[in-house]
Each structure stands twice: as structure tokens, then as C-alpha cells.
């Protein structure tokens, strides 16, 4: 288990070539005072047999896998097709580096170009980068980008955007000395447009709205667009890519930058990562966009080829003048998303969106029929906020029945007691939803 290519004899030969008799001589330039005395204090090395046994034991402590999962809030249990896993698992993809040598990296480059195209089509935007870290950081980058374009320092964010995205934008904003203003959401769990309108002032670069929002609700994006237009600020939309199988592309309703979490597109839950942030904008802003971009060109024989382009925006060329410090992104996750979108295609992505939606609708209808709980939000895509008496008790009971019934909103908003955010995907069967309804005392 050492992953060393040499034989002991070769090591000796090489040392001889170098004229040394101890490996330590190669570290003679490290001052004694900073050299480690003794060994690192780490668990003993394990051979592969022991390692597998040990980690399987550890894995079994993750009991959640046996549960029926109704959790969403930014990470969704959509089905990951076998094809996606099989192809992403080809070592030529996953053991390669950033495609700096285009002649030997056309696989990665073409896939990114396809990704850019598909995300552009999905969002209705002109240009797309090769991915950033995740949905939250894609929003943070968009906020910085808008401030840079507008040369202003303030962004107004709807409080119905995922709270961890808001927090991430704040943290990035702290770095760049940007002011992130958050407008509390309304009782119906929507953006408070009047307040947004109030808060957009002359120092504001952009407004941010999520579609659907954190609570699953479709926002009044026309109102958002009107405010942005009127106040001459940029209009940033955080979108759920699966929902775009059914919903109008933000480009059609005037978004300037569209960002979001790409995990639902063929990436596993993985306790929150690795995921991928997608980022799309209008052509005019391409040079202000962070991250890698692939462009089409030709090779010396005039044949089509792809290459990283517009690198003058990036840190390895431009250093402190770069649009962002990002270097590694989430290429393999973007590849998974690309293969997922290609495989599902026009019809399949609509199917997945539609099935997710009608499962949510079935839940809503059953709850309404029963009258034993209260649906708080309206016009939802695939997430429902349900208010249930004695939620804590029912939540515990659901867990005992091996159901993860959703996420208690009090996790994020302590005042939202007894409210549960329940997510639906095409994976949840009617049978499972009925099971949930029973556990919540609704059926």
C-alpha cells in the first residue's frame, strides 16, 4: 500500500547517481529547528483488506441511507443514471488535470463546451463558465461580478434565497468590502418586492432572487425584472436547473446573471459536496466572468478543436488583476451534469421536472384533502412547506419509521416552528409519499 514505483535496489541506484548515502541528505536544506522530531502521530497504516473492513464499519454508521428521503433545501435526491456513473468513472476523465494541453485534452474540453452550450440553452443566456465550486459560491461570484460591472458596492438579496447562499455572499462580500443587504421574506414565504424596491439605492449594483425560492415558491420574477430595469441594477437569478425543464429560462425574463447549484443534474448527495456551481451571463459581460471558459477553434489542419480561452481574465495569467482567484473548479461534476443533460435530453429532463412537480402536488392535495395539516406555500415546483402540529414529535416518529420527512425550517429560521420543508423528486413513489403522509398524521 505504499504506491511507490521503485524497488529497494532502484532507490539505492538512484541515491548512488545522486552521490548520497542517506535520503536525509536530500533534506539537508531544511533547518534542524523546523525539522520534525520523531514520527507523525497518526493511526497505523492499513493494508487494503483491513482498510476496506474498517471503512465499511464506519460507513454503516451512516444510517440515513436506509431511510426514505424527503430532504431538499439545495441538495436533491434525484436519480443518477447508471450511464452517468459509468462514463464519469472512465479514468481518462477523472485522473486528468485541467486541460492546459489542448491537443491531449480534447475529451475534457469538448465536454465543457457541451456543458456551456447546454447550460446556456437551459438558462436562456449567452455564455457560461466551466463551473465554480457550488451554488452558494456561484452566487457570491455573481455578486462580486455585478459590483465590478456596475462599479458599485451594494447588493440587495431577497431573504427567500437559500440562507447559506446569503451567508456565503456575505463572507465573500466581507473580503471585497461589499455591502450585502437582505430583505426579509413575507408571510407567504415569498420575496417582499416593495421592500426590495425601497432598498435599492444609488449605490446598489444588483438584486438577487431565487427561482424557485428557498421555500419552493415561484417568485414574481417580472416584478424583479421591472425593479432592476427601473433602478438600472443588475438582475441576478439563482435557479434550480431541474426546474428549468418546465420553467421559463431566466434569460427570457431579463436576468443578467443566472447562477445555481448543478448537483441535481446527475451528481450524488455526498453530504454536501463535491457539487458544482453554474454561472451564465450575457455576452457583453463575458470578460467580467470568473472561471474557465472553453472556446471553439481549429487545429493546424483546420479541423475543429477546443481550447481554454479568454485566459487573460484568470489568476495564472493576470494574478492580482484576475476576475477571481478561482483555479480548480468542479470539472468532473460538470462532466456528470453534461452527460446527464445529454442522456436525459429534451424529453427526459422535462419528465424528471414534471414527475418531481406532480409528486409535490400529490402531497399538497392529500394534505389539503385531509385538513389535518396546513400547506404554507403556493405555486411550488417540487418543495412544499407544511405546518404540522407537534412537528417535533412527528418528526421523531417519522425517523423511527425510517423516513427523513424533510427539513425543519427552524434549522434556519428559529421562528418558523412546526414548519417542515418537504422535497419531492421523481424517485419518490406514491407508496412512499403515502407512508410520509401517515407518519405526519395526515393520512
Amino acid at each position, binding site marked *: 500500500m505504499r504506491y511507490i514505483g521503485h524497488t529497494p535496489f532502484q532507490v539505492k541506484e538512484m541515491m548512488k547517481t545522486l552521490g548520497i548515502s542517506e535520503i536525509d541528505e536530500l533534506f539537508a536544506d531544511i533547518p534542524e529547528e523546523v525539522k520534525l522530531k520523531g514520527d507523525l*502521530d497518526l493511526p497505523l497504516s492499513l493494508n487494503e483488506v483491513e482498510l476496506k473492513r474498517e471503512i465499511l464499519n464506519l460507513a454503516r454508521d451512516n444510517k440515513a441511507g436506509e431511510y426514505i428521503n424527503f430532504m431538499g433545501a439545495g441538495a436533491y435526491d434525484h436519480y443518477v443514471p447508471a450511464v452517468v456513473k459509468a462514463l464519469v468513472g472512465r479514468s481518462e476523465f477523472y485522473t486528468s488535470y485541467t486541460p492546459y494541453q489542448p491537443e491531449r485534452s480534447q475529451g475534457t474540453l469538448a465536454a465543457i463546451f457541451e456543458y456551456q452550450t447546454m447550460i446556456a440553452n437551459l438558462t436562456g443566456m449567452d455564455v457560461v463558465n466551466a463551473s465554480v465550486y457550488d451554488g452558494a459560491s456561484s452566487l457570491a461570484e455573481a455578486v462580486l461580478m455585478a459590483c465590478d460591472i456596475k462599479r458599485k458596492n451594494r447588493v440587495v438579496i431577497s431573504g427567500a434565497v437559500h440562507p447559506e447562499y446569503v451567508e456565503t455572499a456575505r463572507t465573500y462580500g466581507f473580503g471585497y468590502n461589499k455591502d450585502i443587504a437582505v430583505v426579509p421574506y413575507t408571510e407567504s414565504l415569498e420575496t417582499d418586492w416593495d421592500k426590495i424596491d425601497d432598498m435599492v439605492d444609488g449605490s446598489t449594483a444588483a438584486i438577487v432572487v431565487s427561482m424557485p425560492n428557498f421555500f419552493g415558491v415561484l417568485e414574481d420574477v417580472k416584478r424583479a425584472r421591472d425593479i432592476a430595469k427601473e433602478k438600472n441594477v443588475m438582475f441576478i437569478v439563482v435557479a434550480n436547473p431541474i426546474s428549468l425543464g418546465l420553467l421559463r429560462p431566466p434569460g427570457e425574463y431579463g436576468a443578467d446573471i443566472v447562477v445555481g447549484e448543478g448537483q441535481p443534474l446527475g451528481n450524488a448527495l455526498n453530504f454536501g459536496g463535491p457539487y458544482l456551481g453554474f454561472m451564465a451571463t450575457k455576452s457583453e459581460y463575458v470578460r467580467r466572468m470568473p472561471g474557465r471558459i472553453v472556446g471553439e477553434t481549429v487545429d493546424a489542419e483546420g479541423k475543429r478543436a477546443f481550447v481554454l480561452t479568454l485566459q487573460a481574465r484568470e489568476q495564472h495569467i493576470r494574478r492580482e488583476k484576475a476576475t477571481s482567484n478561482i483555479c480548480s473548479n468542479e470539472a468532473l461534476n460538470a462532466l456528470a451534469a453534461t452527460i446527464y443533460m445529454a442522456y436525459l435530453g429534451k424529453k427526459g429532463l422535462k419528465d424528471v421536472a414534471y414527475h418531481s412537480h406532480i409528486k409535490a402536488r400529490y402531497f399538497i392535495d392529500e394534505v389539503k384533502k385531509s385538513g389535518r395539516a396546513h400547506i404554507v406555500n403556493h405555486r411550488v415546483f417540487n418543495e412544499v412547506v407544511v405546518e404540522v402540529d407537534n412537528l417535533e414529535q412527528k418528526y421523531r416518529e417519522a425517523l423511527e419509521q425510517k423516513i427523513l420527512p424533510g427539513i425543519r425550517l427552524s434549522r434556519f429560521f428559529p421562528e418558523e416552528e412546526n414548519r417542515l420543508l418537504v422535497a419531492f423528486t421523481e424517485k419518490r413513489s406514491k407508496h412512499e409519499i403515502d407512508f410520509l403522509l401517515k407518519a405526519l398524521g395526515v393520512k
Partner: protein
Amino acid sequence: KGTPLIFERSLPGREGFRLDDPDVPGVDLSETLGGEFLRQDLDLPEVSEVDVVRHYTKLSKMNFGVDDGFYPLGSCTMKYNPKINEEISALPHFTELHPYAPEELAQGTLRFMYEMQKFLCEITGMDYFTLQPAAGAHGELTGILIIKKYLEITGEKRNKIIVPDSSHGTNPATAKESGFEIVKVKSGKDGLVDIAELKKAVDEDVAALMLTNPNTLGLFEKAIPEISRILHEKGALLYYDGANLNAIMGIARPGDMGFDVVHVNLHKTFSTPHGGGGPGAGPVGVKAFLKDFLPKPIVEREGEKYFLNYDLPHSIGRMKAFYGNIGVVLKAYTYVRSLGARGLKEASEMAVLNANYLKKQVEDLFEVPVNAICKHEFVVSASNWKEKYGVRALDIAKRLLDYGFHPPTIYFPLIVEEALMIEPTETESKEALDAFAASLKRIYDEAQENPDLMQKTPHHMPVKRVDEVKAAREMKLKY
């Protein structure tokens, strides 16, 4: 025709994946969602499953990975990615875990996260670690924001960050993104930070020095104790860029050198694959006095129970949603468990041995900016090739492709003209190093004999030399 695209296999009505006959009632979308919200058309490919499989299988073969051969990309530590790591990280117990799953149902993942934090503390000599940053640059940003927040809380006004001229581009970009002014210090002739220059640069406005050690020339900054004193005496902090940690595991620790904040690259030092550009993971470690500034949450333990601790009073906030690239962390965790203390040290020793051995094999062909024992990588200059034959580092790189190797990093660090930055890593055998050296020699002969031909390389790749200028000029960024 050149590189294929999936769109060219698309035809209206062709299907790969589909769902039909839902088990719940259908709805009228214009009622449930509202007509104005619905999209008219969705322009995605229409292809069959076999189309998808063949297309991406074909694309994969137009790539080159570590599994295909030697990949001595300097500064990137392209070591072998053990298959057991992939197998373990694909276990559904881990992949199907929702980030908001109740902690009592996620103890397995929380445990390895906790232990990994501890391991990284031990390996780097730091006190606390966050796993949240998704990549090296993300870690840098985290680290510098921690320093910024620390200064804010302590009320100090320091607006400058020092970076050596040999630093990674991410360093100045990060400092800038964090609102600092960048001060560059020159390297001396020995390739190390010029201490006199550094002393001049350090004043009461300096927040921190960002340093890679060994540096990007592959040289250990042996004055690090003095550097640390210089900075700390003026109240500035030391930031460690962990890109080159693979040279010193178990041998020296940034924490012991005086660094206050470090990031490590799990996708370099800890053997997780680079995935064609990501995902990486860039955990950040700090000395105890900075713990409360870490992004939220970190994993802690109470008795036998692991939990997410959000109680970090001065936290910078968060760098992303959730907790980091946990799937990547798991691979790094299995790597550390496989190697243990001895194995990690051996990895660094062999990485350094390989670099020095390979340097010895090829140094006669090039100009060598600094002739000293190197650590895990070394830099040579092809300026002699350029002068004599008009052959550039770029041409050498392309020709190496023909010989079945991935070329080294070129044109970095910026302080070396026509730089080739070569990092063989410990997982390569002597045979691989010898073969690479032999190919460089052959290319040198070719450069002498037929320099014009070099500009037409590579010959045997899926595409010929790619026109980068045209791409930037025409900006065709989608199909």
C-alpha cells in the same frame, strides 16, 4: 472533421432516458405553475443511450490521465490516484447522505471528517482545521479572510499582503479578492526570498506574508525561521500555501515553521484525482488563536458522538453551502489511513528523490536557474533551446505529447524564462523517469536537426497544434 460533439448525434424524437406513466395523478401545469412561468422549448440533445455511451467513451480517449502515463506537471502533484479510494468513496452509505440528514444518522461521515481534521492538524502542525474550502484557491481565500477578520476584531489596520515574485497566481488574486494591497518581494539569485528585500517590505501595514515552502522553484525556504521572526515581530501573520506539501510530509511542518494559517490541497498531496480540473478540496488550518474565525461549522466530538459545531463567535461565515467537498475528503482520508505516518513520510522522501534524480538526468540539456538540491519539483529553462534553435518550451511540451508523456508545466514560475517545471511525484518508477529523460534528449537532438519541424508538433495526437488565438478572437463559446 475534428473533435465530435454530442449535438451532432441528436435527431428529433430520439430518446435515451425517459419516464412514463407516473404513479400519481397528472396535472395541468398552467394551473399548478401558471402559464407565464412555463417554458416553450428546451434545446437539449435527443440521443439514445448507446449514442451517449459511445460519444463520451470516444471523448475519454481524446484525454490523457495519470492512468495513461507519466504526468510531471509541476506544482500540480499528479501522483497516482489509488483505486481503493474511488471504490470507498462510491459506497452508497456516503454518496446518498443528504447534508441536512440528522447527525445521529450521519455519524460515519462526521467521524471521518473529524478524524481528517485531526490528521491534517498533525501533518501540518496546526491546531484546528476546516474542511469547507472546495479547492486550493478557495482555501487561500478562506485563510486570508480569516486574517482579515482577525485584524478587524483586534482592531488593527493592516492593508498589505506580501507575496514573493515566484508565487502562484492565486496568491495575489486571493489577496486582492480579500481587499488587500499586494506587495511583491523579489527572489534572490538562490531562488529564495531575498531577506533584505523582505525586511524592507515588512512594516506595520503588512497583514501577512503568503509563502509556498518549498517554493515554486522546488526550493526549501531555509530562512523560514528568520522570515517568521521578521513577520511576527512586526505583528504580521504567516500564510502557508500548501500546494507543495508533498515534499515535506513527516519531515517538517508549516506549524512548526511559524505559519499561522495554512491550506492544503487534498487533490495534490493526498492523492485524490484532479478530475480534469476539479473537484479539489482545500482545507484550511489555523493556530489556536484563530479557531473562532474559521468558517462554520467544523466537526467536533463529545464522548462517542460527532457533531457540527456552529459556535464560532468570530467566524468569517461560510465559503460555500454545506461543509465542503466531503466526497473528496473521504478519498484523502482513506489515503492517510492506508499510508500512516511512515507511508506519508516515505511518499515525500521518494517524491524528493525522484525530482533530484530526474533533474540530474536532464539538467545538461537546459539552463538551470538555481543549482541546488531540490525538493519535490525543479525548474529548468529552455532559453538555450530558444536562442540556439528557436525552439520554445511550448514546442518541447507539444513534442513530449508525441512521446506519450504529459508535458511539465511551462512558463511558470514567471521569474524563469522559458520555464519547464517538472514534478515527477513518488508514484513514478525509475523506468518512467529514465524514459522521460531519454525522450527529452531525443527531442533535443530533433531540435538541433530539424527545429522547424518542432513547431508542427504534436504529430500523433487526436488533433494537431491548436489555434488558441483564433479561439480568443472569435469567442465561439457554445454550439
